């Protein structure tokens, strides 16, 4: 089977496997990411979806936006559900009841992945199922109306971490799930955004190629929760990467590669200032939170650079 080159001209000829007419908000990052994922795949996919925006908006009975086999069972268990589907595939393949090659993918938002679904995700990764888990991280429980999650950035105003006169939004930094997944020692882990479509699609192909579990964390903007206009999803994602708030990197069999290093790292306020959820941070009394946000970004970025340098040094040593 020839692989479709990652060029827009060729890709545009492929069938969209998530149809239009679904009920996600205009300007939502999630379906952009999903369409890129489905376009990147060159093998038949079966998907599981955690409860969340993507699930409720694409499957309003009697319609379905999915042109691939798709299952939603509950909120916290997309990884366990797809484990079962994959196990049945193995069983039936072994018995010769299925001939074709099929790959398995799970979608969850940050709620279904970082929080309530964290245990089932960790379990599925440890068991080594041949599955790709995609988290579309929009940084809060957007489906239930913008409540804070462990992916919500420091200082963000959400409906359960409201910026008030005493408490200035979310007091905790976000959990670094991509690193936690890398610590599972699975063959492939990556972080990307739909603004970097070629990067995203390359990563999806790598994830689908490995024999075993893979995890991709995709920053997917939400104009309702981020308090941004409906036409800035791509710019916002780009700013997240250019400020190193959301670096593009991957772990292949444990080895880190940073896929993009901005020539000039923009200050994180560039990413924060376009979003209404951070508006209160720009009051003089919250300046320390802006400083803290910058420190968090710097710390993560520098750690990534150090880790990559370590891998490079090791490689050079081995090639000598």
């Amino acid at each position, binding site marked *: 089977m020839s692989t479709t080159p990652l060029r827009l001209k060729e890709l545009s000829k492929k069938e969209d496997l998530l149809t239009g007419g679904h009920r996600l908000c205009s300007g939502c990052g999630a379906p952009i990411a999903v369409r890129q994922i489905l376009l990147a795949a060159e093998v038949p996919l079966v998907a599981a979806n955690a409860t969340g925006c993507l699930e409720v908006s694409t499957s309003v009975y009697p319609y379905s936006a999915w042109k691939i086999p798709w299952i939603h069972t509950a909120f916290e268990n997309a990884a366990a559900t797809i484990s079962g589907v994959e196990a049945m595939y193995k069983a039936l393949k*072994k018995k010769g009841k299925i001939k074709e090659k099929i790959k398995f993918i799970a979608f969850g938002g940050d709620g279904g992945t970082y929080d309530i679904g964290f245990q089932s995700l960790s379990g599925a990764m440890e068991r080594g199922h041949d599955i790709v888990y995609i988290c579309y991280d929009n940084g809060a429980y957007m489906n239930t109306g913008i409540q804070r999650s462990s992916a919500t950035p420091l200082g963000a105003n959400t409906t359960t971490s409201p910026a008030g006169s005493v408490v200035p939004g979310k007091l905790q930094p976000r959990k670094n799930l991509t690193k936690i997944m890398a610590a599972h020692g699975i063959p492939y882990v990556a972080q990307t955004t739909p603004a970097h479509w070629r990067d995203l699609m390359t990563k999806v192909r790598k994830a689908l190629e490995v024999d075993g579990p893979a995890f991709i964390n995709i920053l997917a903007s939400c104009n309702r929760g981020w308090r941004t206009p409906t036409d800035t999803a791509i710019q916002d994602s780009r700013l997240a990467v250019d400020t190193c708030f959301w670096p593009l990197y991957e772990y292949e069999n444990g080895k880190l590669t940073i896929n993009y290093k901005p020539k000039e790292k923009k200050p994180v306020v560039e990413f924060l200032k376009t979003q209404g959820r951070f508006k209160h941070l720009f009051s003089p009394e919250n300046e320390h939170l802006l400083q803290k946000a910058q420190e968090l970004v710097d710390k993560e970025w520098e750690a990534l650079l150090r880790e990559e340098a370590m891998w490079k040094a090791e490689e050079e040593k081995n090639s000598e």
Partner: protein
Amino acid sequence: MGKRIAITGNFAIAEAMRQINPDVCAAYPITPSTQIMEKFSTFVADGKVDTELVTVESEHSAMSACIGASAAGGRVMTATSSQGLALMWEMLHIASGMRLPVVMTLVNRALSAPINIHGDHSDGMGARDCGWIQLWSENAQEAYDNLIQAIRIAEHDDIRLPAMVCMDGFIISHSIESMEMLPDDVVRDFIGEFKPKHPLLDIENPVTYGPLVLPDYFMEFKRQQHEAMLHVKDVVLEVAKEFQKISGRSYGLFETYRLEDAELAIVVLNSAAGTCKDVIDEYRDKGVRVGLLKPRLFRPFPYEEVAEALSGAKVIAVLDRAESFGGFGPMFMEISAAMLTNGSKPLMINKIYGLGGRDFMPEHAAVVIDEMKEVAETGKVKILKDYLGVRE
């Protein structure tokens, strides 16, 4: 035809699972059902089955993986107890709502708190309204036979619902009994090949499982589930008839014991029924017309048939190994509903017994029969719901 062996309830279930050889089995260990999956794991490790074993990290994931596997298009089994079933609770509704014929053994155990690992029926009764077929078993033989029949019932074209087979923790799961095991090929022929319906793995015909269904269609989904349940009684009897041909053992919707001319009737599930039968014999020898009804199919509950069988009784004592705090025991509520809708007006008493594995002894059955005698003579019920074998 079969082979008579000495075996515990758990190992009998494991052997039945070996003979059934499901495509996928996803489970998480919990006392007292752990041995089922331990034994089954050795069958996997030794190549005696070709099941894909998914050793998940919780019972919630066990049932989630069972649902994914069943929707993918194959035969799926699991086993659990107590807290494990409670953790699955959310997913039990999803398995039945998606009409997936997953078959599970429930080794009955008390629910916490306080934590207790022994047998009572609070787990199974708590799952009463989850849309699963429930078959209850007095001993290892019945549990083994019920599990094999459950495959045929759950997968029947008119039903396609999940089913659980219940047996008492420790009392049955860990006691060695004499039991007849059917030959492997006989079981294999009896259950037949799994027939997938709208499998997820049919990539040529993509299906959407688990959509969002709003008020415009939701009730039609539930009405269809109810319709499927209405077919269960007939299928249970049809499968039992066929099972009798291969085993010589006959099963119905429930079992009756010396009930035909009984004035006093005990209704009790599972292992305590055996104890009651012995005591009933003693009272019969003394000329007391007492009998017993032991439900086998608890969901769906065969109200008409049960009421008909009990219609000659003047007094009925319903023994519940589970509480509904602030209500009657769950079995008492079913029997009351059955008798009322049948138009019979027996005097009824409810006894809560055996919670957390408290022994149910012959003298407890005797206390119940003596009380029924008194109620029959005086025409008066002193205490409607009471505890049996407890320190007050």
